[in-house]
């Protein structure tokens, strides 16, 4: 399953870091962060609960870049 989320982040490298953080979160099969359109496209693992996984993704992103936001 794929979902798209709106994000808020200031610098392009931070967006890359968020992408890495999201990718390595449990339950995420693949994630792409698009800095130009400020969107995060997440592909979830089979059977994962997107809501719970996205909470983790948000936490992981906050950790690498304090100044970011994912609108769930």
């Amino acid at each position: 399953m794929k979902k798209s989320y709106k994000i808020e982040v200031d610098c392009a490298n931070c967006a890359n870091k968020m992408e890495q953080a999201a990718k390595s979160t449990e339950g995420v099969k693949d994630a792409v962060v698009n800095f130009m359109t400020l969107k995060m496209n997440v592909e979830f693992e089979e059977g994962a609960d997107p809501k719970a996984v996205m909470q983790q993704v948000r936490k992981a992103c906050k950790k690498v870049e304090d100044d970011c936001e994912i609108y769930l």
Partner: protein
Amino acid sequence: MNKKQKKVLRRILLSLALLALITALFALGVLPENRWLKLGLYLIPYLVIGYDILIKAAKGLRNAQPFDENFLMAVATVGAMALGEYLEGAAVMLFYQIGELFQSYAVGKSRRSISQLMDIRPDYANLPGEDGALRQVDPDEVPVGTVIWVQPGEKIPIDGVVAEGQSTLDTAALTGESVPRDVGEGDEVISGCINMSGLLKIRTTREFGESTASKILDMVENASSKKSRQENFISRFARIYTPVVCFSALALALLPPLVRLLLQLSADWSVWLYRALTFLVISCPCALVISIPLSFFAGIGGASSAGVLVKGSNYMEALARVRTLAFDKTGTMTQGVFEVSGVHHSAMEERQLLELAALAESYSTHPISRSLQRAWGGELDKSRVSEVQEIAGRGLTARVDGKAVAVGNDKLMASFGIAAIPCRSVGTVVHVAVDGAYAGHILITDMLKPTAKEAVAALKGAGVERAVMLTGDSRAAADETAKALGVEEVYSELLPADKVAKVEQLLAQKRGRAQVGFVGDGINDAPVLSRADVGIAMGALGSDAAIEAADVVLMDDNPLKVAKAIRIAKKCIRIVYENIIFAIGVKLLCLVLGAVGLANMWVAIFADVGVMVIAVLNAIRALRVKKL
């Protein structure tokens, strides 16, 4: 500028003023040269501009992010302060913030200008209320089959069919060309066009989300999510670059002094520490990381303003490398409709022969009859025609102005024992006989698009080395079209599966990074479009299959756009490489100069901020595609 940016700008100006004042006071000798006084005074502008960076650095440290650029900037500036370089410490922080502000402003601006280019998103739909007044509703809430009203000057929000009204539509926002299109009752209209003259009542045939405008916007917005090789390279590079530079900085601070101590020289700790701090200032990969996706984003945005939709950064790259281009004939290079292209061996005025044939065929709706009628152009007085008799597979006979007229193919002529003169040109030949005598023939062919020949020539100019025509048409027709276009390689009488096989052959023959493109009109060639490295669909206004299957979509059916698309892609990729080479080059140069002590922190901050500013400005150039 938004609120956040304005706040940063105020801090920058305040800090800049303070810094200038303090520096001037010390330089003029108004203030005494006291180390502690200096530190105290310079700390004011430093903290004004850098307090948030210091806070973020502390947070990054807590979250175990040692290579966070805030942290690096904090270490570099605090280090400079500790070494007694107060002005430099404060100035580096100031320039870093100026760079960040510029970057955020430039990115925001290009985001806006690209969404302006794609200004096709309709905000509302008009529904007639009971009292006759119009009610504006969210287009998302309009069910299929509703009649919506579009007033002059408004955008058509949803695809549909004109139920009532006449008008002219401006399709410029979709195709990049302002060729007005006349529409009337029963015509299909697509969302995103602007109604220019009269009130149109449109019965919607799709939901808003499925309408052309929504689909195009969705595609453009998601295009930069398909990342190109260069973008992936840069994110990988950024991930190793910062740690490598940081460890080099550490090595630079420790190794040379230790070696010097062993050699019983003075260690010069502060000199090497300063050089190491210079490294940290250059360690941020920002210029690269921002300028590459920005170049692609601007390129894709610019292309869509020219009516060329590129579905991903990766296709932008592939498009720039197209060296072999295969294309379909019918509908791509030709108009796909049959037109009278000549009247030969006529026993009378050519116009007269055409009129005679058109009159005889005036009761028929056969495509050939229609093209005869269209070529004649005038009103046909059907009362002049009588005794029409159709002869299936051959043509027809009729009495026109009292004369016995036979219009049809060779077989029809043979059946009357009339010697027909065969035509040397390729196409459908319509022979005409009057009162049993041969009167000449009319040639009907699928006409080349007016820009087709120019388009093939332009491809060569855009770097395409090999142009190949693939067509299902007969060999004679294919060869003639190819000759007219100046294409040397033609494969004719191909079934759709054969076209796939041919493209696979071309794919097998390509060398190096060269790519194989295929251009089609989206009808019957979806498999080929998806098989080629770059599938280019043409004239996609309203054709869903083509939009789905292709990697690049040309909004109108002008073949010249193919070369333009390639030129846009080439410009974009050139800018990408310029930025990669420029940014990495300057940074490496500054690292080397910094290590040997030739570059100080001022040079380093230029390498960081200056390069980023230049790279961003260069990236925005990809947006300008009008003159390509």
